[in-house]
């Protein structure tokens, strides 16, 4: 595995578990191709076809980055990245996110008609939304790079030029409303309503619709938050017992602390005559992009829920089982939908792969490495 590194070590929040065969043979290739196209188009950099490989259900990415830099496109990379500084935020907020939310809404409506569709129609529908979903996911992931860059720049600047504890800059990035805050504010709002009240009866399903698409990983085989209504009810009950945890009050507190810290930092800059404008510039863009970094997490691959609904129905119709359909490869489902495969064999195959997946879960690459 020379020149390849498990993505779980590079980016620990995602891809921790082994991928199901369906994830590996369907969404991965589409998403990774979409990422290649996007980087080429937006930054002019060509990513080679072999930049990733799957092994034992896990994703590995190339680590010889210097090869990526040895091309003409990299000469203008930084210029293009900085030039789009104001455009990317605007583009995300006014175009990408509203368009994606509209798509999620229409996919929700369409997915409610699954029962009236035949197997081939459902599969075709899912394939078409998967293509669109991965293209949006790449755009949504990309905007986060600005958030990470400015978080890093601010941390480095703060450490060197502000007479304060190094972590003092954290307060400068807190107290902005984002999707995470909205989700918890809504849970808190529901906790203030009696469960027997009609508005709770409307608000709870609305919460599932708006916030139930949260995933525990980039994986079709894993349930999303909306599939656990009792867990959500428990969260509402917790807020009912603990009104002091009101997210809005906490946000206001963080906002006041942020303003105070900003004034403090401005007054404690080393070489202020030079560093003050730089500090202001970094803070401005860090505060613009950091809330987006959090919000975008919630929209990465948000179509997973609808795809899972369709796949489970497909699993039932093909006789594989609702939860075992994820252990078939895309080509096998293509074939089964066309009627060109023995369904009994298909079930045996998915059962076997499910057991393999369970055993792969036990072998985490970085633990094996020790």
């Amino acid at each position, binding site marked *: 595995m020379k020149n390849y590194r498990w993505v779980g070590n590079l980016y620990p*929040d995602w891809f921790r578990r082994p991928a199901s065969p369906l994830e590996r043979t369907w969404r991965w290739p589409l998403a990774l191709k979409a990422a290649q196209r996007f980087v080429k188009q937006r930054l002019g950099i060509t990513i080679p076809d072999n930049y990733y490989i799957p092994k034992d259900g896990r994703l590995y990415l190339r680590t010889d980055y210097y090869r990526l830099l040895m091309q003409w496109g990299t000469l203008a990379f930084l210029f293009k990245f900085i030039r789009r500084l104001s455009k990317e935020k605007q583009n995300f907020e006014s175009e990408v996110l509203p368009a994606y939310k509209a798509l999620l809404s229409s996919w929700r409506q369409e997915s409610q008609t699954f029962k009236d569709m035949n197997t081939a129609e459902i599969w075709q529908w899912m394939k078409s939304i998967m293509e669109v979903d991965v293209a949006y996911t790449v755009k949504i992931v990309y905007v986060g790079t600005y958030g990470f860059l400015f978080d890093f720049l601010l941390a480095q600047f703060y450490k060197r030029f502000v007479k304060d504890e190094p972590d003092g800059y*954290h307060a400068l990035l807190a107290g902005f409303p984002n999707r995470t805050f909205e989700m918890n504010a809504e849970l808190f709002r529901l906790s203030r309503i009696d469960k027997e009240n009609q508005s709770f009866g409307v608000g709870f399903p609305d919460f599932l619709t708006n916030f139930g698409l949260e995933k525990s990983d980039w994986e079709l085989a894993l349930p999303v938050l909306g599939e656990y209504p*009792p867990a959500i009810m*428990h969260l509402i009950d917790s807020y009912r017992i603990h009104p002091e945890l009101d997210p809005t009050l906490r946000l206001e507190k963080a906002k006041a602390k942020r303003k105070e810290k900003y004034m403090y930092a401005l007054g404690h800059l080393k070489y202020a005559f030079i560093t003050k404008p730089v500090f202001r510039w970094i803070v401005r863009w860090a505060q613009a992009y950091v809330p987006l970094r959090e919000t975008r997490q919630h929209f990465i691959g948000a179509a997973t829920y609808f795809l899972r609904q369709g796949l489970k129905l497909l699993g039932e119709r093909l006789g594989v089982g609702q939860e075992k359909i994820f252990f078939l490869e895309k080509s096998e489902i293509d074939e089964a939908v066309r009627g060109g495969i023995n369904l009994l064999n298909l079930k045996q195959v998915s059962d076997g792969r499910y057991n393999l997946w369970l055993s792969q879960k036990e072998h985490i690459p970085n633990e094996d490495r020790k």
Partner: protein
Amino acid sequence: MKTENKQDGFISGTAASSGVAKGLVRIIQDEKDFSSFQAGEVLVAKITNPIFTPIIFLACAIVTDVGSRLSHAAIVARELGIPAVVGTENATKVLKDGDIVVVDGSKGVVHLLT
């Protein structure tokens, strides 16, 4: 990064969000465990991602096996001003539900009191 075993009385990882908090440990493997979490407990998990967000809002501190200062748990903890120690490697194995711990997010250390 260094991780000590439970007998030594502490676990260490990456200091991801400053502050100190004391509380009962609750290990959350996945969303199925959410119903066992009580507000004010210390959330101990392998990793956290968006599905954990509502639980993080109820926690007094966060400890994870895997993660960095830029991982989701760390970012949300900083926003909320609660301590977080990430990348401990084996907190979910060493700690158990009901343990009393003090999480020092500035030093990246979790002290086990019982």
